[in-house]
Every structure is written in structure tokens, then in C-alpha cells.
């Protein structure tokens, strides 16, 4: 069994304030997990804003350097030391961003993005080969080159555009996609088409996906494993179904209790138990704590002296 991605005790601190200020913020503290190369999976990172989930994703993409710890992709540090290594890494790990309308330049036709990706990462020179690579990637996401060619971002719906963004990421045939909140800016009626697409990429094309979200319901729907992050710390990690059906850490429980359900539509149940909020808030700043494994395979952070 070989590892695809290994995140080993990674922390990231940012300095805050001016030159004289010594204040630092720990965006990610001591995160560790790994993805296996043989078994493609959807690995979900759940957290609220400020939980460090995007910082973690940026470190995996090599856009930020960890303060301590290391991240390796197929045994080599992410990012790559030389230009050739960097290009090889970039073609294997591709990002999909939150807002498709911001990810594309409004004055540039969409196929030009796809084309430059195909030329840079696949080294294609021949027109027909470039078109074939673009069409192949677009077919995977349910679009075709004929639909996309010559069109500008404003001519497509949010769902189509996000699918085009995923198609662009798929051109170099990456084994790993990093999707940072890919559905939060997409309309309700189109959201499931993106989520189903990520699922199909895993099942049909063997692509592993790191899916970053704050939406527990879609996380439950598509992911294999997940981690829940609170203020930079992993508080619970394990099989998605096991954890979400019966979360153990108080913060995970609070997140689950805050999901709006439609089961009692019209009854207007909105109150959150204030004790749950207080406990989860207290643990956010509680010192230390350790991830302890449980018989069902999950890891939960427990704190010394705290209940």
C-alpha cells in the first residue's frame, strides 16, 4: 500500500499586527492524515470560517509553506524544488475554487483556459490533440467542447461554469483534486449535479478528492472519511458515516445539531441548546488535548481535566 498524500504533524502560524507586535494566530495545529494511492476516496474537511480548513488546503497545494511538519505527495515534498518538479506536482494535484464567476476572467473565453492547461501540462502542440484532450475532460463532467468553445463566463450558468472549472482541473489527469467549497456559490437546483459529479469522478475515473465544506449534509452524502476542524485543531476524524451519524466531540455534536432539517418543516424548531454552544466554545481554547482512537476506528480529541 503506497500513500498518495501524507500530511504529517503540520502546523501553520501567521503573525498578526505590525513589526513590533508579537501576536500570532495558529491557523492549523498539528494536523496529520494520509490518503492511499490504491483506493480513491472523497476525503472531507469540515469546519466553520476561521477553522483553518482553507489554510490546510493551500498548504497541500503548495501555496503556503507549513511552519512545522511536512506534507509529501507520492513521497516528495509538495510544491517541488525545481521548476520541472513543480510542474509535475501541479499536474498531479489540481484545485477547484469556490466561486466559478471569480475563478474565470470575464473577458476570456473559457476554452482558452482549458487550452492553456492542456498545452502546459500535457505538452501538446498539435491542434487536434489539444481539442481531443479538452473534449475528453469536458465529456467527463457532462459538457462538450462544442458547447463551451468560444463562450465567455457570463454566457453560462453557475453550475455549468463550475463543471467547466472541474473539467479544466481534470485535463492533466490528476490523481488528486482539491475542491474548496465547490458548491456554496452554486444554485440549489444545480448543486446536486456538482456533488454527483465529484462522486462519479471517484467511482468511474479513480480520482481522489479533498472536499472542503461546511455543509454536513453533502459531506455525509459523498464522503468516505472526514475530519472536523475547530480553530485550527482536528477534533474528530474517521469514517464519514460513523462520525456524522453519531458525533462524539462536543463541537461535532453542535455542528450536527445546527444543521437545518426539513423533517419537521413548518414546526419552526430553531433553538440550539445554549449549553452545547458554551461547551464547544470552551473547548475551542482549551489547552492541548490529544486525539484518542476509539473502537469504531475514529479519532476524537479529549482534553485533560475537561469533561
Amino acid at each position, binding site marked *: 500500500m503506497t500513500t498518495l498524500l501524507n500530511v504529517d504533524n503540520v502546523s501553520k502560524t501567521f503573525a498578526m499586527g505590525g513589526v513590533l507586535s508579537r501576536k500570532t494566530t495558529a491557523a492549523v495545529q498539528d494536523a496529520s492524515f494520509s490518503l492511499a494511492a490504491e483506493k480513491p476516496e472523497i476525503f472531507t474537511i469540515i469546519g*466553520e*470560517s476561521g477553522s483553518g480548513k482553507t489554510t490546510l488546503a493551500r498548504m497541500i497545494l503548495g501555496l503556503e509553506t507549513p511552519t512545522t511538519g511536512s506534507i509529501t505527495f507520492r513521497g516528495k515534498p509538495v510544491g517541488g524544488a525545481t521548476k520541472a518538479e513543480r510542474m509535475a506536482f501541479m499536474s498531479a494535484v489540481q484545485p477547484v475554487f469556490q466561486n466559478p464567476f471569480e475563478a474565470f476572467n470575464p473577458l476570456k473565453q473559457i476554452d482558452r483556459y482549458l487550452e492553456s492547461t492542456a498545452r502546459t501540462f500535457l505538452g501538446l502542440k498539435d491542434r487536434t490533440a489539444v481539442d481531443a484532450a479538452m473534449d475528453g475532460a469536458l465529456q467527463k463532467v457532462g459538457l462538450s467542447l462544442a458547447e463551451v468553445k468560444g463562450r465567455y463566463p457570463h454566457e*453560462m*450558468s*453557475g*453550475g*455549468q461554469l463550475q463543471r467547466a472549472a472541474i473539467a479544466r482541473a481534470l485535463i492533466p489527469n490528476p490523481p488528486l483534486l482539491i475542491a474548496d467549497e465547490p458548491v456554496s456559490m452554486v*444554485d*440549489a*437546483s*444545480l*448543486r*446536486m*449535479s456538482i*456533488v*454527483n459529479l465529484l462522486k462519479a469522478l471517484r467511482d468511474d475515473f479513480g480520482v481522489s478528492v479533498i472536499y472542503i465544506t*461546511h*455543509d*454536513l*449534509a*453533502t459531506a*455525509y*452524502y459523498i464522503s468516505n472519511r472526514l475530519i472536523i476542524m475547530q480553530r485550527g485543531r482536528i477534533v474528530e476524524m474517521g469514517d464519514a*458515516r460513523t462520525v*456524522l*451519524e*453519531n458525533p462524539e466531540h462536543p463541537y461535532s455534536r*453542535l*455542528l*450536527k*445539531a*445546527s*444543521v*437545518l*432539517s*426539513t*423533517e*419537521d*418543516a*413548518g*414546526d*419552526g*424548531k*430553531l*433553538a*440550539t441548546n445554549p449549553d452545547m*454552544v458554551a461547551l464547544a466554545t470552551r473547548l475551542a481554547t482549551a489547552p492541548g488535548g490529544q486525539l484518542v482512537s476509539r473502537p469504531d476506528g475514529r479519532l476524537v480529541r479529549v482534553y485533560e481535566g475537561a469533561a
Partner: protein
Amino acid sequence: MTLAQDNKPRDILTVEGLKAYYQMSYFGVDREVRAVDDITMTVRRNEIYGIAGESSSGKTSFIKVLAAALRPPFRVVAGSVKYDFASGPVDVANATDAQIEAIRWRHLSYIMQGSMSVLNPVRRIGRTFEDFAARPLGLRGKAFEDRVVSHLEKLKLPADVLRAYPHELSGGMRQRVTIGLATVCRPEFIIADEPTTALDVVVQKEVLSLIRDVQQEMGSSVVFVTHDMSVHANMADRVGIIYAGRLVEEGPTRQMFFAPKHPYTAHLVASLPRIGDTTQRPALEGRPPSLASPPSGCRFHPRCPLAIDKCKTDVPPLETVAPDHRTACWRWQDVKPLVAPHAAHGVPA
């Protein structure tokens, strides 16, 4: 509820045959975008009315008309929007600026989307409150501040926020400040446009329950707009669905979720994933239609699984199919909920 209120008519807002278009004429070329096309509906006193629809469905245009905040080239072409306020009835579709000025904030208020861009970043919150509310309330100095502070207490905000700048507050607190701005004059009618879309799950729930508490305490009516059906499930008394500028279905919240009578509503409800259920969710193909050239007949027919030839040519009327429940579909009797209610139940929380 007091006796005086019982004698008032049940509806605070009556919209009749409202058509509002964006009309542009450049270099002799006329272009018309029919953002609101023949909407008739009412909002009752002390009720939360949810409006759902995706982007470019015309829902924001519709509430711009309700809020009397429309600017050319967006114009009301036909119909009326009548409010029945304590100060007297007003038809905001045909009112003068002075009439609208008289009701704004005091009777008709608006909670805006994106609290970061609503609050002036270089003005302290207290100054923003003065700008908004000092004139409608007719208070100044200490009396005004006391009134604001006591109102903020209800929203669980400390008085210190009045001296803070917007960037010093968290997203949830900023959103509570904008709710405070919209409600400090105790308006009878509040329009809330996606007030929680940018918030995290835990904060979102807090803000939603706050809006409802304030609404119930003041006895106001709220029109609540969001594309998130799970928010409607927990907030609204009644829900109306807007598709391509038209109201396609309207009914009590529970019925909309468990017995929808329009295929679009059925789809919206069925596509919501739930914890404890991993069955494949259907995705609706196609894209929302352009309002500049909407499809003929029923505007949903190109994406509708139930479409027949009649749907391509004839516009279905919005007809009453059950008490309080109206739908615009030729085949409403064939619409089945795509997810059985009992399947929604997963493992208890």
C-alpha cells in the same frame, strides 16, 4: 394580540397582477427583461412568508418592488402593491416619493444581504444607527441612544458595539447589527433578503431564531427570501416559489415539503441531502431560463420531467388546489413527492 389588531383586515400586503420590467432603449434597439411577470399574492399579519427561487429567477427584482426601491430602467408596468399600515394604506407601486419616505424604516423595513457591504466601514456602528433611525424615530441625543441600547440588548448585543467599527465585529455580530438597524423602529413589515447566506451553520441558526424572536415580539410580518429550502423549512409559515419571474407555487410550509404540487418544488425538496440517507439524489438538468427571452407556455417546460405538448404553448394559471395552496401546473395532479417523508428520517440527533 390586542383587540384593535383583531379588527384589522387579515392581510397587510396585497400584490395584484404585478408586472415590473427592465426596459432599455439604446440606439433605437428596445430590450425588455420581464423580471416580474404577473404576480398576485398576499402576506398576512404576523406571518413569515418565505420566497424561494434561484439566482436570475427575478426574486430580488420582486422584493425591490415590495421595498419600493426600484430605479429606472426597472419600472412597474402594471398592477399594484398595497400595504395596509397603521398609518393608512399605501400603494408603493404608484406612490409619490414623499409617501414612501413617510413609511420607510418606520413601517416598511429591509434586512440586507452581505452585512460587510451594508455597513459603512469608516463609520462607527452608533453613527450608522443615527443615520438610519434618528429621523424616523424622531429622537436625538441620550433618548435616542437609550432606545438603541435597549433594542440591542434584545438582540444580545452589548452596548459597546455602538462604538465599534464594522471590521471589529464577527460576521454573526455584524449580521445582528443589520437586523438591529432594520428593526429598531419597530416596523410592521420587514423584508429580509438572504440574511444568512454568508454565515456558518452554527451562527446561521442563531441569527434565524433571532429574526423569528424579534418578529414574534413585535408582531410584524416578514418576507424572507433565500434559495436554501432547508431555511424555509424552519422559518416560514408559508412558502412561495418563484421561477423565471412567475410565482409557480405557494402553500403552507409543511405541505410544500411533503405534498408539493409543482414539479419544480418537488425537485427542490428532493435534491436536499440529509444526514442518515445516502440514496442517489436527482439533479435537475438544464439551466434557469433567460428572462429576456423566456420559453413559451409554462416557463419550466424545457426542464420538466412531466412536460406535455400543452405545456409548450399554454401558460398554466395559478389555481387553488387545496386550502391556502396554489400552483401553476397543468399536471399538478400527477406531481408526486420525489422523496417519501418517512425516508427523510435518519438516525435521531
